[in-house]
C-alpha cells in the first residue's frame, strides 16, 4: 500500500531544518531551504484545507521581515558604520534613557536587522511547510489517549474553520450582488450577522450530530487505526537528523530528500 509518511516525520524534518538554518545563520542557505521546502509542498502536499499553511506562513514571514526591519531601524541601539540616511530623533523623557527613536540609519544596522528577520521568516516558513504536508487530524490521532480526547475537540474546531472561511466569502459575494460593496466598518455588520447565524446553526447541527452518535457518553474511546512507523519514516527521520553533522553542506540536500524518500 502506498501509505503517506507519518505526520510526525514531517515535523521532525522541518524542525531539524529550522534548527540547522538558525545554526548556520546564512541568508543564502535560508532562502535555499525555504525554496526547497516550497518545492516539496508543491509536489507532496495533499489537496486539503491545511495545504495552504505554507503560503500563509510565507506571507506571515514577509511581514515579520518588514516589521523586524522597521522596528530595528527606528528603535534600538545604534550600530556604527556607513550612514545611509538620518531620521529625525524623537525626544523621549529622561526615564527612558538608553532608548532612542530615529537617528542615523547605518548600513550595518539595516543589514543586521534584515538578517534576523529573514532567519525568523525562514523558520516560520519551514514550520508552515510541515503544517501543509501533514494532516493535523492524523497528527493528533498519533498522540497518546490523554491528549487524544483534547485532540478530538481541536479536530472539530479545525474542520469548522475552512467552512467558516467559505461562509464569509459566500455571504460577502451575496451582499455584493445585492449592490452593497463590502468596505468599511458598516459592511462588517452586514456580514457578521448572517455569518454569526450561519455558524451558530452549523455548530448546533454538529453538536446534535455528535450527541446522537454517542460522543462523550462512554468514558473510554477506542482508536480505529493506529499509525505505525514504516522503514521510510525511520529513514527520512534519520536523514533529517544527519543535517546537524555538517549543516552548511547538507541543508539543501536534506530539504530535498523527501523527493526521493517520500512515496
Amino acid at each position, binding site marked *: 500500500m502506498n501509505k503517506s509518511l507519518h505526520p510526525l516525520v514531517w515535523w521532525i524534518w522541518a524542525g531539524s531544518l529550522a534548527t540547522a538554518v538558525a545554526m548556520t545563520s546564512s541568508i543564502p542557505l535560508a532562502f535555499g531551504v525555504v525554496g526547497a521546502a516550497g518545492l516539496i509542498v508543491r509536489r507532496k502536499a495533499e489537496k486539503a*484545507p491545511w495545504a495552504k499553511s505554507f503560503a500563509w506562513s510565507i506571507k506571515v514571514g514577509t511581514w515579520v521581515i518588514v516589521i523586524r526591519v522597521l522596528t530595528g531601524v527606528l528603535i534600538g541601539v545604534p550600530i556604527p558604520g556607513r550612514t545611509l540616511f538620518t531620521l529625525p530623533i524623537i525626544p523621549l523623557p529622561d526615564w527612558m534613557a538608553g532608548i532612542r527613536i530615529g537617528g542615523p540609519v547605518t548600513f550595518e544596522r539595516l543589514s543586521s536587522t534584515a538578517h534576523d528577520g529573514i532567519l525568523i521568516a525562514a523558520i516560520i516558513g519551514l514550520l508552515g511547510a510541515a503544517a501543509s504536508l501533514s*494532516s493535523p487530524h492524523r497528527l493528533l490521532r498519533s498522540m497518546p489517549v490523554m491528549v487524544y480526547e483534547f485532540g478530538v475537540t481541536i*479536530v472539530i474546531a479545525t474542520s469548522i474553520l475552512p467552512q467558516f472561511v467559505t461562509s464569509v466569502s459566500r455571504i460577502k459575494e451575496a*451582499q455584493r*450582488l*445585492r449592490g452593497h460593496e463590502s468596505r468599511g466598518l458598516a459592511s462588517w455588520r452586514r456580514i457578521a450577522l448572517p455569518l454569526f447565524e450561519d455558524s451558530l446553526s452549523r455548530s448546533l*447541527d454538529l453538536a446534535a450530530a455528535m450527541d*446522537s452518535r454517542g460522543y462523550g*457518553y462512554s468514558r473510554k474511546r477506542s482508536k480505529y487505526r*493506529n499509525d505505525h512507523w514504516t522503514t521510510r519514516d525511520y529513514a527520512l527521520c534519520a536523514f533529517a537528523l544527519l543535517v546537524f553533522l555538517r549543516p552548511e553542506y547538507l541543508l539543501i540536500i536534506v530539504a530535498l530528500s523527501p523527493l526521493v524518500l517520500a512515496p
Partner: protein
Amino acid sequence: MIKFTNVSLIYPNSQQTVIEDLTFTVAEGELVLVMGSTGIGKSSLLRLINGLVPHHTGGILAGDISVNGISTQSVKPGGLAHLIGIVGQNPLNGFVTDTVEEELAFGMETLNLPPDVMRKRVEEILDLLSLAQLRNRSLATLSGGEQQRVAIGSALVMHPKVLVLDEPTSALDPVAAEEVLSILHRLVHDLGLTVIVSEHKLERVIQFADRIIHIQGGGQTQIGTPETIFASSALAPPIIHLARAMNVSEIPLSVRQMRRLTEPIRKHLSEITPDVVHTVDKAKIVVKVDRMSISYGAKEAIADTSLTICAGEIVAVMGRNGAGKSSLLRAIVGATSPSKGAVSIVGKDPFSLHGKERTELVGFIPQEPSDLLYGQSVREECSQADADNHVASGETFALIQTLVPGISQNTHPRDLSEGQRLSLALSVVLSAQPQLLVLDEPTRGLDYTAKVSLISILKEIAHAQDRAVIIATHDVELVAELASRVIFIAEGEIVADGTTMDVLLSSPAFAPQVAKVMSPSPWLTVKDVLTAMRNNP
C-alpha cells in the same frame, strides 16, 4: 419498536404546541414517512425519537416515548446511539472528521468498540452502500448524494435498529435521490431496519412508505396508510392530484399503478397535442454568453459555452450535483469573471457592475436566501431596500405582502419560515425591478403551497413585466410547471437546450410524474391534462 404515548411538545417562549397528544407505534421493519408544511414540526418529531428534543433544544415534553423498550426520558441521546441512527437535513453539517473512512469509524470509537470489530464493520458498510472507492476521499469534496450515503453509512455502522432521516433527498438531483431511496428500501427489506423519514418531495417517497404521519399544524396529526392519508390530504404529489381530477377508483402511489388505472383516459387524450401557452418574442436579448469557459485551478467548471436568453423567458438550468449549474449562474450574475469568453447583460459586463446600476440589471437569490439579509426585522430589511433602490418608502413591504400576506413587520428574518424568508429576499431584490432575476436552488425547503406561490410570482415577473428569469433547480415538478425553456448541463457543457417539453420528456430520470403517467403523449402538468380533458370530453 417505537412507541409514542400521549406525547405533547411545546418549545420555550412559544404559545403554540408543536405536537399535541400524539400516540402511535411503529413496528419493526416499517418505513414511515412524516409529512407536513415547512416549519410545522417534522424535524421536531424526528428528533423526539432519540431525545435530541428536548434534551438538546429545550422545551417541555409530556407523555412518553420509548424505543425498543427504553424511554427517552431516562436516557440521553448518546445513550441511544447504538439503537438509533439519525441523519440530519444537511449531512455536511453533521460530519465530525474529514475523510469517509474516519467518519464511518467515529461513532464506533465513541462507543469504545474494539478495533477489529470496527475494521470489519467499516468494510461491510463500504460494500453495502457502494462507498468503497470513496474511502479515502475528503468529505468536503463529495457530491451531495455521496455525502448523504456516507451520513447513512455512519449511522448504520453502529448497527442501529432504527434509522431516522430528515429530508434525505431534498438537496439531491433526481438520480441521486433515487439511489438513496433505493438503499433505504433495501435496508428495510433485507435487514428489517425500521426507518422514519421526512420529505417535502412526496412524489419521490410515497411509493416506499408503509405508513404516513401527516402533521397538520395546531397540534393536529393524522396517521395512516398512504391510501387513507391521500384520500383527503391537500398536501399531495402531482400523481394524486391527477388521480383525483380523473376520478380514478383507487389512490395510486406509483406511476405504474396510475398508468394501469388510466388506460382508457390516456387513449382518449392521445390524439390531442397540447398547445404552446406562452411564446417568447426573441427580439429583446437580456443575457448573452459568448464562448465562455470558467476554470478553478486545473478543473474546468464550464467549457466553451454560448447562450442567449431573451426577455419573457423562464429558463431552468438542470443537471447533476456538481455539473456546473452554480458556476454558470455565478458568471451570469457577475459573481465571478469567466476565464475565457464574455458574458453580457443588456450589453453590460455583469462583473463590473456596482450599486444601483447592478441591482437594476440583475437580481440574485443565492442558495441560502438569508445571506442577503442582515436586518433585525422585516421592517428594517424592507426600508433598507427602499433606500438602496430609491423607491418610495413602504414599497418593498407592499411587495412582500402580496407574496406572503399577513407577514408581521416586527418579525426577525431568522424566525421566518423557509418560504417566508425566500419571499423576503425576493422582495428585497425585486424592489429594484431588475431586468434579470436569477435563483439558485430556491425550493430546497419549500412545501407545495410555497412552491405554488413562487411559481405565480415568477410567471408574473417574466410574462407580465417582460423580464428574464433563470432558475437552477433539481425539482422536476417545479420546472414542468414553471419554465418555458430548460438547459441541461453535464460536466460543464450544455448537453440539451430546448423547450421544457422537449428536454424533460427526452430523459426518463428527469421526466415529471405526469409525463411518466401520460407517456408517450407529451403532457407535463396536471393543469394541462385537465384543460385538455375539459375541452375534449
